[in-house]
């Protein structure tokens, strides 16, 4: 492509803005959107961000190829588009596959079974007994969680 003398090609901001949005879509799930059940169970907010970022990059790449005399960013656009596609794929695999890699709950105790009693220490290293808790409460919710190791 012949570049017109004196006409400086502008940096293609759409590519970089789009990639920035894709990065936000990728990294924001765990520290932010996963905190709210509405955006956690189905990560629609992150999908939406990926879509916006992808659209911006698509526009950037399109104008870089259509008007190469005015817009730079053909190579950077393709590289950023590929990176974005990779991040999106990784995100989708993470929320549809990796987060489901837990054993089946077949052996878990079911409703109407007697709950095994326990004595476990709390954060102050004081023993806490389920029998005592049930003596003083009308019910008890046990929340088992993976922990933070």
């Amino acid at each position: 492509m012949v570049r017109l003398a004196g006409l400086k090609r502008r940096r293609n901001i759409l590519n970089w803005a789009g990639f920035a949005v894709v990065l936000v879509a990728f990294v924001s799930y765990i520290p932010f959107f996963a905190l709210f059940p509405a955006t956690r169970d189905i990560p629609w907010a992150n999908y939406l961000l990926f879509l916006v970022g992808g659209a911006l990059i698509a526009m950037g790449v399109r104008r870089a190829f259509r008007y190469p005399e005015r817009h730079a960013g053909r190579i950077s656009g393709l590289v950023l588009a590929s990176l974005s596609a990779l991040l999106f794929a990784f995100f989708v695999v993470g929320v549809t596959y990796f987060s489901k890699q837990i054993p089946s709950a077949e052996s878990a105790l079911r409703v109407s079974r007697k709950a095994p009693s326990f004595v476990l220490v709390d954060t102050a290293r004081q023993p806490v007994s389920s029998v005592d808790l049930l003596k003083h409460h009308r019910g008890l919710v046990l929340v088992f969680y993976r922990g933070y190791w």
Partner: protein
Amino acid sequence: MRGFERHINEFHQRGVEVVAISVDSPAESQKLCQSRGYRFPFLSDPKAETIRQYGVLHAKGGEGGKDIARPAEFLLDAGGTIRWVNLTDDIRVRASPESVLAAIDRLAL
């Protein structure tokens, strides 16, 4: 966990206590509770004995092949009988406190 913390008063109003159980040490749980402001008991089951008894062990699920708990919620009545259970198949998706409160009201504990 944050959800349970936000609704903890509603559990206590119903005479129901919430406890969290994991293999984390008391010191690790204390750090977590302090940074997030959790006010209900966090209990430590380092050998995953209680976790095993409830059938919610995730063998070698932790760092370095450590046995940990899979996410699960149980509701016990005062007689120690399990009245409601939530077993997710996705570590991201947990029981909402609202659904546990609804179960408490429905079962009239």
